C-alpha cells in the first residue's frame, strides 16, 4: 500500500569499501613483509598469521606469503609490533615514494 513516490526517502546506506576514501594516504610508514623471515612465507606452511588476526582494518591476507592492501592500510604498525619474528619493517613513505618515482 505504501506509495512509491513517498517511500524510502531516508538515510539508507549500502555496504561498500572506501567510505573514507583510500585510507592508505593516512600512512606515514609502510609495513613491508620480509618473506625470508615471515613464518608462513619461509616455511611454506599455514602458520602464525598474527598480522592477519590483529590488523584492525583487515587489509592483510591469510595467504603464503601474506599480502598487504596498501590502498587502505592506515600504517598503524600493529602488524610489525605483533610479528613474532620481526618480519615486518616499517619504512618511511616519503623515501619509498621518492624511490618509486
Amino acid at each position: 500500500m505504501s506509495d512509491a513516490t513517498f517511500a524510502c526517502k531516508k538515510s539508507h546506506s549500502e555496504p561498500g569499501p572506501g567510505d573514507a576514501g583510500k585510507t592508505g594516504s593516512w600512512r606515514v610508514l609502510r609495513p613491508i613483509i620480509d618473506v625470508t623471515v615471515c613464518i608462513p612465507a619461509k616455511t611454506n606452511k599455514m602458520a602464525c598469521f598474527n598480522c592477519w588476526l590483529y590488523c584492525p582494518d583487515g587489509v592483510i591476507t591469510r595467504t603464503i606469503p601474506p599480502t598487504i592492501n596498501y590502498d587502505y592500510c592506515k600504517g598503524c604498525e600493529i602488524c610489525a609490533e605483533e610479528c613474532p619474528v620481526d618480519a615486518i619493517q616499517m619504512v618511511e613513505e616519503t623515501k619509498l615514494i621518492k624511490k618509486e618515482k
Partner: protein
Amino acid sequence: MSANTTILNLPEDELVHPGNRACAGCGLSILYRVGLKALGRNTILVVPPSCLTVLQGLYPIAATQLPCLNVTFASTGAATSGIIGALKAQGKTDITVAAWAGDGGTADIGIQSLSGACERGENFIFICYDNEAYMNTGVQRSGTTPQGVITTTTPISGKLQQKKDVPAIMAAHNLNYVATGSAAYPLDVYDKIVKAKTISGPKYIHLQTPCPAGWGFDPRYAVKIGRLAVETGLFDLYEIDHGTFRLTGASLKLLGKTRRPVSAYFETQSRFRALSETQIAAIQTQTDEKWAEYERKMAAE
C-alpha cells in the same frame, strides 16, 4: 569454555570493509572485525552514537556489511526489543539481534534501556566496547573511565571516582551469560560471542578496546597495551555462564602466578600521568585483593 578457534580456522569472510574512518590502531576495529565474524551474516545490528557510528561509515556508504539500525544514544536496549518483537511478529526467529555500544552508551546514558531489555528477558547479545571514555566526542570521562585517568573533563587531577563495574551490574540481572574480552585476545572474544549465540535470553559481553588517541600511546602498541591490562590483573577475562563464574584464557593462566605490577601498565599511557605513587600503591593493593578473591573462589571449586 573450550577455546577451539585458532588463527587458522577463524572464518575468512570479512564483514567490515576497509577504507573506513576508524583511527589507525583502533582497538575497536580489531574486535568489530572479529566480532562480526562470530555473529555471522544472519544478524541485525543496533548501534547508538559512538566511534562505531563513524567507523561504519557516513551516508550513503556503509563499512558494515550487516543490516544495521543506528539509534539514539539512550535507546539501544529498547531498540533491540523492537527489532526482536518485529521479527517474532513476522515469524522470523533465526536471526541474531546484537547491539554494539560504547561505554557511555552502555554504562551511562544507555543503562536504563539496557537494564529494561535485560529484565524483559529479550533474546539478544549486547556488546559493550569499553574504551574507557567518550572518545568520539574527544575523550571526556565516562562511568567506566578508571580512577586517576586524565580526560578532557578531568584535565588536571584525573578522574576522582572508580570505574563502574558494568559486567557485575549485568550479572545482577541474572543473565544466562555475561563475559569480558579484550582486543589483545580476539580469539577468546570470538569464542565467547559464538557461545553467546547458543544461549537464550539476554547476553552481555564487555570488551576492553585500547584507544591510541584517547589513552595516549603510539598506535603500534594497541594490542600490547591490551595484553598488559590483562597481565597486570587490571582487566580480567572471564565469563559467568548461567551464574557460574570462571576466569578464561590469559587471565585463567595468571592464577597462582606472579602478576606484573600495575605500574607497568600505567607507564605506557599518558592518560595515567596524574597518578601519584600512593594512588598506584592503592590500586596495586586493590588488584591484589581482587586476585586473592579469585584464588579463593577457584580453590573452593
